[in-house]
């Protein structure tokens, strides 16, 4: 007692009580702060322990990792041997077995493309280069051969030249402007000649590997391609829809609102069924479109409407002064939109856009309804083998785990970006 007393009547500072620091203090504060809390904790510990021990017993202790057939697996816990036997099919579908390295590296290429585009330092012209190179590699590996038609090259030249001319006016030097003029002229004249029939239908063939048609594609590359290119193509058209919805031209606005609400009001399945049964009716008889492409078109149509609504949120969050200032500077509508409005609006909506992307990544699983072999469908097909019948939980949990890894990492990235992009405005 007398230890505590200091000269002058002051008291020595005591260490905090033992039950308020360290593990004990933490438990007291977070688990047993009141009677009710304590009871909840005990009940939860018992329940979680019971479930977890049952699950671990099934999934690990009594599980069979090495059985050669389903009959050997029966009676015990989980049959992970099924995954061991079928994982190549689940990941790559019916792609020719000895060529599985191709979808494997295609997935690596797409992941590299997505991960490098996640880096903020790449958010400029480099993004176009990354996606161009990444797409060529991906489709070269998947198809084995690609044909680049002359008209596509001419069209790209015209588009790059046209966009450069309208946007970089008064910013770029004469050399750059002349380059755009030359590109646009080549594209325009070339396309005109091509349409008039003067230029033949040349195409550049790159064919280092054997051709594999889309009906043999399956598994994880299909899921990633549908989601990634669904978003990539839906993005520009979603931006146009959002701008149209905010426009003060009544007819344009009406068209965009009608389209967006129609698509958002119906389920994706009905669009997929429509793409599979109605698209063939819409086109001149005799033309057949690849089933995979039909699904991709449906995903793009669907995604565009949702992206448009996300982007509209960004456009609405901009103060009116930005629009007025751009007008006062005498900028044209494309200049105002592409140089002033969109850069600010898109920045706001990047995190919700990633969440939308996670949604599409999951929604691509619906294409199995129209017979596309995406990752969920190949997992489903792995259950059909009569030798391995009767282990649905193992396969679905495995597939769920893979989906979880993709979606969870994307949602973490979106959370990180939200903080990162708001650094400037946070106090």
């Amino acid at each position, binding site marked *: 007692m007398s230890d505590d007393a200091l000269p002058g009547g002051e008291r020595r500072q005591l260490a905090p009580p033992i039950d308020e620091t360290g593990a004990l203090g933490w438990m007291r504060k977070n688990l047993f702060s009141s009677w009710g809390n304590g009871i909840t904790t005990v009940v939860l510990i018992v329940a979680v322990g019971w479930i977890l021990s049952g699950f671990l017993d099934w999934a690990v202790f009594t599980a069979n990792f090495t059985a050669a057939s389903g009959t050997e697996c029966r009676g015990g816990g989980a049959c992970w041997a099924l995954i061991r036997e079928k994982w190549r099919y689940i990941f790559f579908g019916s792609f020719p077995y000895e060529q599985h390295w191709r979808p494997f590296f295609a997935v690596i290429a797409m992941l590299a493309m997505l991960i490098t585009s996640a880096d903020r330092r790449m958010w400029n012209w480099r993004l176009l280069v990354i996606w161009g190179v990444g797409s060529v590699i991906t489709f070269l590996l998947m198809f084995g051969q690609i044909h680049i038609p002359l008209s596509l090259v001419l069209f790209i030249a015209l588009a790059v030249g046209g966009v450069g001319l309208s946007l970089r006016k008064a910013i770029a030097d004469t050399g750059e402007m002349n380059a755009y003029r030359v590109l646009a002229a080549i594209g325009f004249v070339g396309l005109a000649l091509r349409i008039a029939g003067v230029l033949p239908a040349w195409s550049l063939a790159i064919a280092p590997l054997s051709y594999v048609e889309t009906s043999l594609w399956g598994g994880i590359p299909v899921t990633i391609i549908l989601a990634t290119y669904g978003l990539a193509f839906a993005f520009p058209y979603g931006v146009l829809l959002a701008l149209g919805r905010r426009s003060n031209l009544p007819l344009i606005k009406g*068209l965009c609102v009608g389209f967006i609400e129609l698509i958002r009001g119906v389920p994706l399945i009905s669009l997929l069924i429509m793409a599979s049964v109605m698209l063939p009716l819409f086109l001149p008889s005799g033309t057949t479109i690849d089933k995979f492409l039909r699904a991709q078109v449906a995903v793009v149509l669907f995604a565009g409407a949702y992206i448009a609504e996300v982007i509209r949120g960004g456009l609405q969050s901009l103060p009116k002064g930005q629009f007025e200032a751009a007008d006062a500077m005498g900028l044209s509508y494309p200049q105002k939109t592409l140089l002033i409005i969109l850069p600010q609006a898109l920045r706001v909506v990047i995190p919700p856009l990633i969440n939308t992307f996670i949604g599409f990544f999951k929604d691509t699983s619906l294409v199995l309804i129209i017979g596309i072999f995406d990752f969920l469908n190949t997992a489903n097909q792995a259950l059909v083998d009569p030798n391995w019948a009767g282990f*649905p939980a193992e396969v679905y949990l495995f597939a769920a785990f893979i989906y*979880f890894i993709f979606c969870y990492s994307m949602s973490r990235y979106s959370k990180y970006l939200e903080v990162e992009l708001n650094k400037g405005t946070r106090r």
Partner: protein
Amino acid sequence: MAVAALGSATRVKVAPWNDPVIRGWVFQIVVVGLVAALAWYLVSNTIDNLNRQKIASGFDYLGREAGFEIGDTMIAYSPASTYARAIWVGILNTLRVAVLGIILSTILGTLLGVGRLSPNWLLNKICAWYVEAFRNVPLLLWLFLFYKLISEAFPGPRQAISALWNSVFLSNRGLYFPVPMADPIHKWMGVALLVGIAGAVVLYRWAKKRQEATGQPFPSISSGFGVAIGLPLLVWLAAGAPSAMSWPELKGFNFEGGTVIQPEFTALLVGLVLYTSAFIAEIVRSGILALHKGQSEAAAALGLSRGQSMRLVLLPQALRVIVPPMTSQYLNITKNSSLAIAIGYPDLVASINVTINQTGQAIENILLIMAAYLSVSLSISAFMNWYNKRIALTER
């Protein structure tokens, strides 16, 4: 004179190709023209294809005999019924799963969202992991998993798990349980229930008005429930309490009698509820977090009990943040119920898909799907917008 001169001086003459109004109209006409041209191209191709393939058009097929079985129906249906009836069965099935899904996932989602804010670390983390696990995996995968688990892990009807003195049977054919025998009094009990609910609403309004005028509280919620439940009960008693039950019994390979919750329906409902409640939990959590801490402290300082401060102070404010995103989740449940087709629950899309395959009339059927979903979606959003307006902050 001077004014007129000034007016004409400020009006700058521009060339027609530089006039924004004229430009706007030209642009609109060009775009609409392009869209119309595309539509004309598609329609002409379609007509051409339909003629070539000799597919009839028009909605005449709706009156013809459907000829296919539907496993789970709420109204009388047989393969001899018309296509229109088959589609109506599908619509009712969609509505049934959507309405139940909305109610159950709202309850579960709210519990999870509140649990996510609990001071209890363990409860908090369990709710957080539940949300992450269900949000980050496709709904379709959950549906397959639950459906396969029910149909493969549960025993057949002969080895069914029975409970409650052999009155409830759980097997891979679903959950069988006894129901009261059909009795004419049931219709009147339904009428009494509606009258009771209307009475409860009137009572609630009266109690609210009285409390605002005199400050006297009235237990309107419990007495309202009493009226709504008591009235049908009185009707039942007045009719002599008919208590004949239809019991499920094993006959041959399946049960007869009683009623059944089918495995497809169960898998779909469980999947929808577990998946959507993860999203609703996040919405509820953000709604509660959006409230200023002073609100609950002020309510406590006024002497309100915890329940009162929740009901009168916190919830009305949190709802303003919660309702708009909740609306879109409700719409999602309705639209996601169309995944039923993958596990064989006969919803609207499944009925129409069979109809397309049998009649070949894709366009009419797709139009029907779109019309049905659009009207359900629009009515849900109209209702939620009305509710949102009702609870919105009344500003000057």
